């Protein structure tokens, strides 16, 4: 009995990684900005969205990890095998564009968080770009995963800074379970943005690939699912504390719009150096972490889908497309931040638009694939699960379309 239990625990730790890492990268620079903005402007009101967001996240992530464990193939491999090269090619092109936009916003997060500590972006961004490149190219999968897991634990800084701000816990608890709907356009925009940043196209590819890479099989899938769900919950716990911190520190003293996530950190200053320090350190950690994962995930996905050699264990000349695309994404993603007067906000809005356009396709492909008996055997979705999945997808499509519309409106205005 004990032996059996010990084995279960061992398996759980063996499968630890993919779900947690994906979920945490989800709280990247863009995510932190969105949550800070929600808290600074609307206080505790938006907290109720976190529970439905967690559910949506669990539904999509669970499907990916299940597909990875059962088929042993990445999502891009499956799309290629089942829907052909042309579909894959267009999807991959779109994915590169979306992810490129996200990479830029991560480097922007690195720049603004380190500027809070008085480090110029002309120093921090090039250094971090080289560090990101080096870490992944020269590290092994296992060592890199360990660093990422450590990085996941640094998210605890948000929980501490949330507590240091001494928010109104009673309100926080009440609004976590009490939905507040208002027909105020900016409120709706905020809700849509929160969902939009939580579920991104790259996550589906990354998670499934990570599950495959980790060698998780259908047998260990039960433990893997626990890990994925745990990751989703942790993501939203962190989001909760970010919102609460900004609600307590900024909204309570006068609701306002914030410029970027670094602006939110400055808003925490009256509550002591620690709260400020932890919030900005968290922002740096999140941006750097996501800047490591996103380019790598992008090149893996693209190379596997199109059949190019890939893998950090290959030499440069063995996998040229892999390395060139990887280097290109990082170099050009970082360089853009250094262009004086570059309109970053517009760039991020644009990437959100493409994000919204690509996501529905990927979710639909996922549901189609997971229901193919030939691939999934007895692991296809149950009828109830399909109902939940299609409803979630319909909801996601509706919300992301709304986000796209709002972003386009914003872009036209600015």
């Amino acid at each position, binding site marked *: 009995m004990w*032996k059996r239990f010990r084995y279960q625990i061992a398996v759980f730790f063996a499968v630890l990684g993919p779900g947690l890492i994906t979920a945490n990268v989800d709280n990247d620079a863009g995510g932190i900005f969105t949550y800070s903005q929600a808290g600074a402007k609307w206080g505790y009101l938006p907290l109720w969205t976190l529970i439905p967001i967690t559910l949506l996240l669990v539904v999509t992530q669970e499907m990916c990890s299940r597909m990875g464990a059962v088929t042993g193939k990445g999502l891009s491999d499956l799309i290629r095998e089942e829907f052909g090269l042309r579909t894959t*090619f267009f999807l991959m092109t779109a994915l590169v564009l979306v992810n490129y936009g996200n990479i830029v916003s991560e480097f922007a997060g690195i720049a603004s968080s380190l500027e809070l500590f008085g480090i110029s972006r002309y120093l921090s961004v090039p250094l971090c770009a080289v560090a990101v490149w080096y870490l992944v190219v020269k590290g092994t999968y296992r060592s890199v995963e360990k660093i990422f897991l450590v990085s996941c634990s640094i998210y605890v800084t948000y929980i501490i800074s949330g507590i240091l701000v001494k928010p109104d816990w009673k309100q926080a608890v009440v609004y976590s379970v009490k939905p507040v709907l208002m027909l105020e356009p900016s409120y709706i925009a905020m809700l849509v943005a929160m969902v939009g940043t939580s579920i991104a196209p790259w996550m589906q590819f990354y998670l499934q690939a990570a599950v495959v890479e980790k060698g998780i*099989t259908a047998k260990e899938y039960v433990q893997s699912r626990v890990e994925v769900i745990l990751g989703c919950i942790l993501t939203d716990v962190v989001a909760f504390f970010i919102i609460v911190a900004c609600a307590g520190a900024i909204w309570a003293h006068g609701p306002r719009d914030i410029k970027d996530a670094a602006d939110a950190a400055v808003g925490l200053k009256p509550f002591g150096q620690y709260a400020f320090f932890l919030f900005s350190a968290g922002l740096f950690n999140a941006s750097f972490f996501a800047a490591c994962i996103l380019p790598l995930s992008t090149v893996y996905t693209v190379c596997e889908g199109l*059949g190019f050699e890939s893998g950090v264990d290959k030499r440069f000349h063995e996998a040229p497309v892999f390395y060139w695309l990887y280097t290109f994404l990082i170099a050009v993603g970082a360089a853009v931040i250094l262009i004086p007067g570059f309109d970053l906000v517009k760039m991020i809005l644009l990437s959100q638009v493409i994000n919204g356009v690509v996501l529905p396709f990927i979710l639909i492909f996922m549901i189609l694939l997971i229901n193919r008996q030939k691939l999934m055997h007895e692991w296809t979705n149950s009828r109830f699960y399909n109902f939940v999945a299609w409803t979630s997808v319909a909801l996601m499509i509706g919300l992301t379309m709304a986000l796209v519309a709002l972003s386009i409106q914003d872009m036209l205005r600015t």
Partner: protein
Amino acid sequence: MADPRADQRLFFTELLGLKVFDLKGRTLGVVKDAAIVPLLDPVRVDRYLIGSGGAWLTVRHDQIRSVSLDGIRLRDEILTPYHSDEYMLRVVRDLLDQQIIDAQGRKVVRVTDVTFEIHQENGGEVLWVLDVDIGLRAIFRRLVQGVLPPRWIRRLQGGIPPHSIRWEFCNILEPDPQRRLRLNISNRLLEDMHPADLADIVEDLTPEHREAIFENIDSEVAADALSEVDPDIQASILESLETEKAAEIVEEMAPDEAADVLGELEQETSDEILEEMEHQPKQEVRELLEFEEDSAGGMMNTEYVALPETATVADAIVALKSNEELMETLNTLFLVDAGERLTGAVPLARLFLHDGATPLRSLAVDTLIDAPVTEHRDRITELFDKYNLLALPVVDEERKLTGVITADDIISVLREK
């Protein structure tokens, strides 16, 4: 068109959608797929599947007069409706966009296009599969296929380097054992590879395909390859196999490696496999399994040659002859006293410098380095480094020789860190 044979070539992207004309030059339909029947001929396209209105028709290879970019002209227009044929390897369904093993390049690749060669046979033209195309040039063809005229595509693709694999080096992956037989898929190419290369390939495949390969290749090759595979994957492969096959493979492995693999499995599964094994290897593996993984006992193997202290070079040669299977890696002989206690180590190369009557004891190394079975892994690697060892004997509490740790074990340990 610098290549004079280019006219004899046809890409599958060009064949797909090609019009098929009857004897009077009327269009019958367009090519939807092409099939090889490997049991009949491993390279010739045997059937063409033609879409005509709603239904699919089958054209046999010997019903065709000519094949070119302008279309397929028939010489016999009595066509049969298509009904699924399990003996067919269909290009679109079974090959395109799927993974195969490139046995020459020793890696897993994804098929993007197929190149055929047009041959004359009995007064008609047939297609032989020449290459499987991967890489950018084939991707370009797939993307613009049907968008640009084929002759333009041929001209435009000239600037992109080709990347193809000869058909005879392609190993198709098919997990279903029945279909493997019907499609005449052998594992000859895989069995000829170096086990370490095969192990790398196996790591890149899905669990289903790994199982199919290990289920079918020769147990000895399987054992060699399995030893080289990542431990997590080793375990999942063995668990997926039939217990008998798993036992057969484990038997062929060196006892220390077998013990390592079995140690990775769930207790139940490893007991089942042990149960199936033959007596002698089973005993050795059982004993090795008792040791902690990170102790000398867990690292050592029991394949060594030990001789009595009194033995001579001639005796050693005789002993070596009866242990021929160890010759590839053996580099040290060990001397034991009447109570099987370790007393000396003789580097193999010294045997060549002395005649048969020389007592082995006089050839033994000056300082005998050994380790108790309980010694920790880190200490063992230190010993190897400090004394530049190739092999380290391991002894039990009574100083009886129980196993040997070799330098390749140490390299694996260091690589894991």
